[in-house]
């Protein structure tokens, strides 16, 4: 740690002091290897927690929403995977777009996405959400959700069966597993 790069503590404003002390703590934690030890505990723990409590937004647009409903029914029972459908975007991690998005709906859907807190993921379910599907040349259907929202997982099908929906969520599991969601003090 090079103390000469920091100004003297007495001459600092409150904000400068907070920045300085944070930097010192960061440097100490990284230099001593405590960060690596912390990450080894926190990363799997937080990752496990996030993976097993992915709350999708309960936003059914089209016929794929029936498959979503079947998926949450007793036969497939997605609550055993921690998928609880919530009605407010403030409480959600996953935006499940299941159907065609008309041009009139697009600003509202974008706003729902913006209202969700980080970390958040988007799943495009079915042909219509992926590429417009049967409405590939329509005057009123957006040609794919990924034209205005970043999409993480695509689930093809028209509509995809509930098994495919669960498979899509398990693929999102793999994606979260590989992300460094539980590490702290990144450079």
């Amino acid at each position: 740690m090079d103390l000469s790069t920091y100004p003297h503590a007495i001459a600092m404003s409150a904000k400068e002091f907070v920045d300085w002390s944070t930097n010192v703590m960061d440097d100490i934690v990284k230099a001593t290897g405590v960060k690596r030890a912390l990450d080894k505990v926190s990363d799997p723990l937080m990752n496990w927690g996030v993976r097993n409590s992915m709350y999708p937004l309960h936003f059914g647009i089209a016929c794929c929403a029936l498959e979503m409903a079947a998926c949450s029914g007793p036969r497939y029972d997605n609550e055993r995977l921690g998928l609880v459908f919530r009605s407010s975007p403030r409480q959600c991690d996953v935006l499940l777009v299941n159907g065609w998005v008309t041009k009139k709906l697009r600003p509202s859907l974008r706003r729902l996405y913006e209202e969700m807190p980080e970390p958040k993921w988007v799943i495009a379910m079915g042909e219509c959400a992926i590429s417009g599907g049967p409405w590939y040349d329509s005057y009123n259907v957006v040609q794919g959700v990924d034209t205005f929202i970043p999409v993480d997982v695509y689930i093809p099908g028209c509509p995809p069966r509930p098994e495919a929906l669960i498979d899509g969520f398990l693929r999102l599991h793999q994606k979260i597993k590989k992300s460094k969601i539980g590490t702290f003090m990144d450079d």
Partner: protein
Amino acid sequence: MEENVTYTVEQVKSKISEAFPAAVKFESKAKPRRLFMTADKGSLFNLCKFMKDQLGFDHCSLVSGVDRCDRMQVVYHISSFSNNITAEIVVDIPRDNPEIDAITPLWEGANWHERETYDMFGIIFKGHPKLERLLLPADYTFFPMRKDCDTGRH
């Protein structure tokens, strides 16, 4: 109209042809409790007012449009709960000037039907309280249900 007076299809037919001898023509196809007629553009509003006030037609089930390429058509389904009759009125309007009187002042239920018909066909309903786009975004400049609208281009 007096209470508890009901008319058969034939009675309705004769009453309308008495009141509008030239403007309204009845079609030959017949179905039970159905009435098919074509009307003039100018006399449509008076016809509807007559049917509502004198004959007890109290419900507008449908307003829709048809693009026949050489002309436009507006189709009305007007039904009567007391007579148990549904009347279909077809009105021809010119394609280059698609204007017709709104029947929303008579039946409020026609409000969104006429807005949707304007939205899809561009038919202007004169006297409508709020003739704006209903289903499509407000900034669209074309009418997608017209035959000459190339929907894939948009």
